[in-house]
């Protein structure tokens, strides 16, 4: 029941692009993640900095999981068949758990 938490842990140390619900787009290295999918990013850069100058001097940030819309991840990081099988397994386990 913490499928994406585990998935994000595999992304620690990698560069990701986080799109927030307020349309802000932040690129940075994933430093930490928790069960709520809160994120800590390091060495961030804001896409379209001219439009969003609020974070020009910010190097590291904490992002509340609930404000995230998307996270763009490197395609080659993902083992597609493994991910799909893990999702199937997770769904099955959740169903078994809810039955008993």
């Amino acid at each position, binding site marked *: *029941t913490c*499928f*994406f938490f585990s*998935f994000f842990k595999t992304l620690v140390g990698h560069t990701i692009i986080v799109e927030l*619900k307020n349309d802000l787009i932040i690129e940075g290295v994933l430093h930490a993640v928790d069960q709520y*999918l809160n994120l800590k990013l390091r060495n961030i850069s804001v896409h379209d900095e001219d439009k969003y100058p609020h974070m020009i001097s910010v190097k590291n940030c904490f992002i509340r*999981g*609930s404000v*995230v*819309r*998307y*996270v*763009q*991840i*490197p*395609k080659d*990081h*993902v083992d*597609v068949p493994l*991910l*799909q099988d*893990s*999702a*199937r397994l*997770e*769904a*099955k386990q*959740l*169903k*078994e758990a809810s039955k008993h």
Partner: protein
Amino acid sequence: MADTLGTTVEEPLDLIRLSLDERIFVKLRGDRELRGKLHAYDQHLNMILGDVTETHTVVEIDEETFEEIVKPVKREIDMLFVRGDSVILVAPPIRT
């Protein structure tokens, strides 16, 4: 119904399970739609989609005529995590 392989379809989430490795259509809040291949999901409808096209429908207002101009803006992303709380619906691809 025997459920040795978890293949029986009983609840809505099971229908999504059937769509793994298939292309799907996702309607999101904020007048956004995604089309991509479903690689993973959970009970919150958090998802990972591959080879995604996002279509974001924007309404512009002409300064002079004040008419509303509705136009779709497309974006392509190789691999995308989508947070479930934005999701409105999930379906097989709709042909428009």
